[in-house]
């Protein structure tokens, strides 16, 4: 009965005439500050989220590769990456919260609708994250992480991570395609939908995952510097060789994804991105800074200097931030026929915004001070352990 009714709904939706798209009205409370501020906060925190996500994605795949390759020093580098995974996951979740918050303020009516249409897969993100996060801790804490069963769990966790990314890309692409909504809702009101017919879907998925190798490469570069400084020259050089290889791999994959996504875009959107203007500027800036970052990784090879990995980290942050902004510019262009940020009234909450700024600055200063008090001791302890085991 319900299937028959759902089919009737599909047919009815397909033959409906004259009705507009089911786009919800923006929230009656309006924006709490001018949208440009919310966008800026969103870009900043989303960049941090992407970096943490990339670190986690890159680390898990390099970790699995090292577990299989098992050349000299691979095991110790694998342990380093394995220990990074729970931390990376923690911060990818934590830095994922504010952009999700701000996207709901800015584009809530689009985002909620697409989330409901993908509801089953969207809520599946939660058990998948619990699983992969749990596995990352388990493989760190278990007595025998070399056991094949643990390796299998690690592979499954890596797959789960890819799955989470896939569902996010589905949601983001569907949120700008309201013309598909009614058909999908009629097809599955329980949200067993995916946005598979979006021509940019897989390219965007690759686009967000590919930098994982590059970001993990910078993390390995840091470790290599540490090894070189501690006199573990061979191990440091081994780490730096891997760092450069994976950073280049990430950039090549990112370039492929970039070309793929541009070629898959509708013509008018592509011309918007590639013609003169803000979008082209952001694209150029992102590409230039990513290239600078890669050059810094290469130049930092075999050097016992923190400057290179630090500057490379900054360069990749500055590469990612404009690309995150570009992503929003493209979204606004896609939504232009349906919705514009300027349509929503602003009922300012300057007091609350100021309070948030105070808490943010105070919180970051506190964390910085605590890091300065605690982390040097931790690094010294790690050094002693490594020297002992070497």
């Amino acid at each position, binding site marked *: 009965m319900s299937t028959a009714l759902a089919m*009737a709904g599909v047919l009815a*939706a397909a033959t409906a005439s004259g009705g507009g798209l089911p786009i919800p009205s923006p929230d*009656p409370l309006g924006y709490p500050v001018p949208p440009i501020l919310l966008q800026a906060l969103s870009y900043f925190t989303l960049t941090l989220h992407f970096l943490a996500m990339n670190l986690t994605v890159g680390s898990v795949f390099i970790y699995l590769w090292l577990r299989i390759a098992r050349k000299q020093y691979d095991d110790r580098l694998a342990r380093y990456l394995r220990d990074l995974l729970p931390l990376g996951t923690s911060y990818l979740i934590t830095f994922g*919260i504010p952009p999700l918050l701000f996207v*709901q303020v800015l584009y809530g009516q689009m985002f909620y609708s697409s989330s409901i249409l993908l509801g089953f897969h969207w809520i599946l993100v939660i058990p998948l*994250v619990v699983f992969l996060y*749990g596995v990352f801790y388990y493989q760190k804490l278990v007595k025998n992480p070399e056991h094949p069963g643990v390796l299998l769990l690690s592979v499954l966790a890596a797959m789960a991570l890819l799955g989470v990314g896939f569902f996010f890309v589905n949601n983001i692409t569907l949120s700008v395609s309201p013309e598909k909504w009614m058909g999908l809702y009629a097809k599955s009101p329980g949200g067993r939908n995916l946005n598979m017919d979006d021509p940019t879907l897989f390219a965007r998925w690759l686009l967000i995952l590919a930098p994982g190798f590059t970001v993990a490469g910078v993390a390995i570069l840091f470790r290599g510097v540490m090894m070189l400084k501690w006199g573990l020259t061979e191990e440091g050089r081994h780490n730096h060789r891997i760092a450069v290889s994976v950073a280049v791999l990430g950039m090549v994959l990112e370039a492929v994804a970039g070309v793929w996504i541009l070629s898959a875009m509708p013509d008018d959107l592509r011309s918007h991105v590639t013609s003169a203007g803000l979008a082209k500027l952001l694209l150029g800036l992102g590409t230039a800074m990513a290239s600078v970052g890669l050059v810094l990784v290469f130049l930092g090879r075999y050097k016992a200097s923190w400057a290179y990995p630090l500057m490379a980290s900054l360069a990749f942050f500055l590469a990612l931030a404009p690309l995150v902004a570009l992503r929003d510019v493209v979204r606004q262009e896609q939504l232009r026929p349906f919705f514009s940020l300027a349509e929503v009234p602003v009922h300012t909450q300057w007091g609350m915004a100021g309070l948030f700024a105070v808490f943010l600055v105070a919180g970051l200063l506190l964390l910085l001070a*605590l890091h300065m008090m605690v982390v040097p001791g931790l690094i010294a302890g790690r050094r002693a352990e490594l020297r002992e085991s070497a």
Partner: protein
Amino acid sequence: MNYPIWDVGGLGAGLVVAIIAIIHVLISHVAVGGGAFLVVAEIWSRRQPDGQRIRDWLHKFATFFLVYTTVVGATTGVGIWFSIQLASAEATSLLIHQFVFAWAIEWVFFLGELTVLYLYYYGFKRNTPRMQTFLAGAYFVIAWGSLVVINGILTFMLTPGAWTLENKDIAAGFFNPGYFPALLIRTVTMFLLAGLAGFLVASRIRDEEFKARIIQFCVKWVIPAAILVPGLSYWYFTTLPASTVSILGGGTVGVVGGTLSALTRMAILAGVAGTLLVVGTLVFAAYPKTVNTIAAISMLLVAQLGIMGAEFFREMGRKPYVIHGVLYSNGLWVKDAKDPAQLNGSYLEKAKWRGGVAPRTLAHGEQVFRLQCASCHTRDGYRSVVYRTRDWTPEFGSRWLGTMQDMGVMPPFQGDALDKAALVAYVLSLRGETVDPRDLVRDPQATAERNGLDPGGRGQALRGLEVAGAEVAQ
């Protein structure tokens, strides 16, 4: 109706939220109370002759604490957010737009909480005891700060106080009547839960003498909360809106059926859970060496049962709203419900997500069901409509839909006679009855009179309603 309704078969979107929330609430409270537990245990260990041994145990506790609170606690916290968007996008949107910076401040606390916990955990064997105590203290203060913030948003939903859509007074909404009693209840509960988590980790200690000392230490965390929670709960109860108190005392059919009032059910559940916890803790105190993992887990499960009861109690009390007095559970704004033209006009025509279905068909009825009923009810699963309408006749259903809001737990029906007829026909079709919606709208007046009923539906004793034994208000 602005948003589509996530139609989750026999489970219902609300139950998905509840399942995630119940898991999260216990762990998130352990996450805060555990911070205080770590501080006191750090200080205590320094005063004991075998302090290192206690700190070794504390390291195990911290490992359990870190993994449990981050993997399950933090993730289910995000999960609640995911699920409320799906179950009630309109309400989530309102909360986000009103409290975005409160949420952002809570995120700062969360970031601090997580980072300080890592510094504490990874520095366990490197930091000085004084630094560890300081980090544990900083962790507790920051974690409690996140509770202070989120509590304002959570309590706002049931007791928004002087906040209105027009004044958008964030201070009035945040420091609402339920804020302080709820904050105190949560604070003492988190100490209790920290003690219970301590039992679990202590139960694994093999040395019985040492285990006994740790268990005795944990006992002290449980008893005060068990004494204070009933009084604080009464205070909280006094802050509830009169309509909520009326609903809670009115007798409600819940998960297990029956006709006990929600208040009675909650009192029984709280009494049973509280008594079991106190008795269990006293037994642990008297025979600390015998505490095993199963017993410790049982205590946590009892606490989980109590939390489940409290969560359902609060959700029950909020009916028929998702934000009290502002927004009904099915996304209907109270301001719109007060406008007869909005409320009684054709629903199908104004529903954005109708999908172009033909009027007066079963598909029409299904759309009305999905968009108006499915946010709380399933067809034949949790809060089953088939069960609740088991005694309906077509005429009775149409009349009942016109008066259901009088019971206090249901929102008003949105739509005209056609929408009602289509919904009734659809609901009856779920139990195999075939009714043509067109037959129900021909002459409702004559049909009602033929059956000796008031066409307005007033004064009829109704079976199968949400509020058992209630009568539609005269």
